């Protein structure tokens, strides 16, 4: 076993664009805005960047290292494209962190971006290319909706009870997003609005689904011992874990569809790496992959924030609200901030970074110590899950 990454690497600058339907911006605009905000925040010159890891899921957002090399004019620098579906952004940060920890480079950039809305589609696009296409005719909301159907059945929730539980998750995230000038969907909603919204894939309605957005986010990463040369409040990496599915979810009949093994594993390993014994008590705040409201509910249990089968009680008590014991999605989450696939993992870290530095404005959580990022890529039947922990 290798060493823990804890306190070996620091983030000294971050940037994040406005997320949304950004008709007047192309992917170069997005990457330049995110990267240059990160450079300015870190106090580094663009020429100081020695290597970069760029996350894009869709080839139209940029392929190969040139996805970042061209827009950022990283002249003759090593750049690697990372792709791990919706988990792409956090994996770009993970790879960049390992490179500085290995002392191969001193100052590196992790950046993710996606320019989706030009495609004119509802929701996200899956695999293309010639092949065998016999998978059921369902879009991503349908695949995740099956978690909700089973969760309701397992815990004896009526459709009304289950939909109310999920609605409260979205109401909380829209509230937080309304306080965030960079969020895509900033209107507050009520439980009634969420429950009565048109169905996308039963039992998920429109407000159970996250926004699909254009956007970019970036981080400048150095070794921990160098961090104070750049700023007085760097944010240190405490854990970087990723866990990948192996097809068990669509082949094995012993999976219960009410938890996600990969999240459990990534969480346990991240807690071990960071030395966390009681996540519910020790984690100050989290940005998790709420692609759908039900996904967030399961994540709360899988990350040990709530006991198994009991997340409803924590939702009802407001435990995950900004003023609660463990605020989740303080920036609005995928639900309200939006979801430019390759950028989302870095957007989550951007909020943890700003919160830890006390710069989250109206959304500021009191005195946070540790922030957790949970990023999910692919279908819940066999996802890529990364679990990153950052702190002061």
């Amino acid at each position, binding site marked *: 076993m290798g060493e823990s990454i804890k306190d070996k690497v620091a983030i000294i600058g971050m940037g994040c664009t406005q997320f949304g339907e950004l008709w007047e911006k192309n992917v170069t605009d997005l990457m330049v805005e995110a990267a240059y905000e990160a450079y300015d925040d870190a106090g580094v010159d663009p020429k100081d960047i020695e290597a970069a890891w760029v996350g894009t899921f869709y080839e139209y957002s940029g392929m190969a290292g040139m996805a970042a090399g061209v827009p950022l004019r990283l002249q003759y620098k090593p750049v690697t494209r990372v792709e791990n579906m919706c988990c792409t952004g956090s994996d770009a940060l993970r790879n960049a962190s390992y490179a500085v920890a290995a002392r191969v480079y001193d100052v590196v950039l992790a950046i993710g971006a996606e320019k989706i809305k030009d495609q004119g589609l509802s929701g996200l696009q899956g695999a293309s290319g010639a092949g065998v296409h016999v998978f059921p005719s369902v879009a991503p909301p349908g695949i995740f909706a099956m978690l909700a159907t089973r969760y309701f059945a397992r815990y004896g929730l009526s459709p009304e009870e289950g939909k109310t539980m999920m609605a409260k998750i979205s109401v909380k995230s829209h509230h937080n997003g309304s306080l965030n000038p960079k969020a895509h969907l900033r209107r507050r909603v009520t439980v009634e609005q969420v429950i009565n919204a048109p169905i996308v894939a039963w*039992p998920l309605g429109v407000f159970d689904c996250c926004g699909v957005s254009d956007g970019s986010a970036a981080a400048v990463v150095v070794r921990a011992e160098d961090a104070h040369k750049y700023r007085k409040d760097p944010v240190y990496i405490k854990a970087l874990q990723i866990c990948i599915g192996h097809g068990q979810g669509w082949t094995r009949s012993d999976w219960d*569809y009410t938890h996600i093994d990969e999240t459990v594993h990534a969480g346990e390993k991240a807690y071990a790496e960071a030395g966390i014994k009681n996540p519910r008590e020790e984690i100050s705040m989290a940005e998790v992959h709420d692609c759908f409201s039900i996904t967030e509910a399961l994540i709360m249990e899988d990350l040990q924030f709530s006991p198994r089968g009991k997340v409803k009680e924590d939702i009802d008590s407001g435990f995950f609200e900004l003023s609660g014991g463990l605020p989740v999605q303080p920036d609005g989450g995928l639900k309200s901030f939006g979801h430019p696939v390759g950028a989302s993992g870095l957007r989550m870290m951007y909020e943890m970074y700003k919160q830890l530095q006390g710069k989250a404005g109206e959304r500021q959580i009191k005195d946070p110590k540790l922030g957790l990022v949970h990023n999910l890529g692919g279908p819940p039947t066999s996802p890529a899950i990364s679990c990153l922990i950052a702190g002061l």
Partner: protein
Amino acid sequence: MAAGLGFDPSQVQDPMFMTVGNTGSALALMMLVAALEEANAGDRVLLASYGNGADAFEIEVTDGIGKLGERRGIRKHLESKRMVKNYETYLRWRDLLTLEPARRPERPPMSISELWRERRQLLAFYGQKCTNCGTPQYEVRPGRVCVVCQAKDQFEPYRFADKKAKVFTFTQDMLQSSNDPPNTAVVVDFEGGGRGMFDLTDRDPEEVEVEMPVEMTFRKLYFNRGVHNYFWKARPVR
């Protein structure tokens, strides 16, 4: 034609034009199956068909006919039919009604070589069973390494087509384009082990529930760029 050959109308098998329609090259053999379902040992059957040419067989039914056992055949398939709710649904299934396409990605092309390579899974609906740990598993692209015990290349073919199954979870999808919205997709667990995600067809969306018994049925999913896409769907047990 039968009269011209000197047959009495009572000797002629129902061509099923009113119950099934003209199924083309399959029709003669379907009529033979229907005839055999009512046949007794000693009966003689003339099977004759024509198209661009003609052929004829004389078949004598033996006492083996009684040993065939329970089959769905023609009669039970006809008995289990479900009426299409309205004319619009029929038109949509037959692609006779042009609708505004959903704002979803176009159907990607099918690969002829992959359809051929994976024909055992796609057409015969075979999966495989690990001979090391005994786990049945179905994937269109079958694994080489067992998903449970990680044994490599220790599989025997395993037939899923005739296995009973139950709905483990489901959704009713309104986003993806559909001939028969909502798209009901189910995760099913097969009796004896194995799981898969399939379209649920011939269903009333209101009746779908967790633990509902289903059976598998071979269907044409769609026709795209010159290729018929055949695969299996689940449906409520009839």
